[in-house]
């Protein structure tokens, strides 16, 4: 859910891509200067011109990473998966009947050991949270900080804890918050963002 989101694509900015490509091309150029065969130099310059005209767009790079992931060929995601697979899972559900989880247009977030929220963070990460329904949510807890004899456990959470978990979702949204109940959504927004 995290890597397919437009927020993830925003990480591939055209400026960063250009910068990276230009750096590689500059390195290539300095290698060409060492060649003394004019025919080879001409060919190498043609390659450079081609490379300059085909710098990929953020969409291409993002989709390419999803595609490589699908064909099990994405080293970065493999390392993330290998990490998360070892986390302890807690399934949260509300103690009170009237409490519900909200979600957003960018579901799921990370909390680090300083209790700060991030869209995604796998360094010093305490846990990752994602609601899966109005009444259920998953927590992926880093075993370095959360010892448990059970790899999967179930936990009832009170109204204040639900509010805190929902607060994390709300601040990590892109723009929209979603909820199954209009009153709950109104009350939540008024409580979290009273001046807006």
């Amino acid at each position, binding site marked *: *859910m995290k890597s397919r989101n437009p927020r993830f694509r925003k990480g591939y900015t055209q400026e960063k891509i250009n910068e990276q490509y230009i750096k590689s091309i500059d390195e290539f150029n300095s290698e060409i200067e060492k060649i003394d065969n004019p025919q080879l130099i001409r060919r190498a310059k043609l390659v450079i011109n081609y490379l300059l005209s085909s710098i990929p767009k953020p969409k291409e790079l993002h989709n390419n990473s*999803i595609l490589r992931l699908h064909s099990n060929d994405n080293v970065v995601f493999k390392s993330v998966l290998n990490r998360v697979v070892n986390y302890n899972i807690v399934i949260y559900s509300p103690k009170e009947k009237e409490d519900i989880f909200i979600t957003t247009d960018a579901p799921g977030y990370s909390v680090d050991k300083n209790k700060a929220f991030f869209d995604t963070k796998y360094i010093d990460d305490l846990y990752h949270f994602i609601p899966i329904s109005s009444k259920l949510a998953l927590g992926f807890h880093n075993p370095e900080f959360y010892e448990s004899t059970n790899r999967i456990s179930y936990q009832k959470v009170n109204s204040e804890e639900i509010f805190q978990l929902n607060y994390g979702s709300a601040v990590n949204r892109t723009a929209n918050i979603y909820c199954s109940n209009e009153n709950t959504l*109104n009350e939540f927004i008024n409580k979290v963002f009273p001046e807006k």
Partner: protein
Amino acid sequence: MQYIKMENQHYVPKSYLKHFSVSDSEEIFATQFFEAGNKWSQPKKYHINSICFHGDFYNLDSRIADYHKLNIDVIERNAFWYEKHFIEDIVEKADKQLLSVQEIPDLAFFYSV
């Protein structure tokens, strides 16, 4: 060169959003924050088909698809396997406290990918 009719591709799966919808419907209450006005919109009901999508968001560039001999919509059709039954299954199993350790790799994939 492949041509394909433009399609709304959801970056938050409909099968996920369904579990936050008003009971027995595919409608959900939504509120949006407007940076310009520094205000939240009044919550409104939307069908889950009409939120969290962009046209052709995951389609490959046709030159790249042709080069690799892939359909341009290969990601939308095949990459997000968990949309089909998995989300439904884990919600049901979590509700009944029946999730097993064998499901952890798929849960990790669902969250991070």
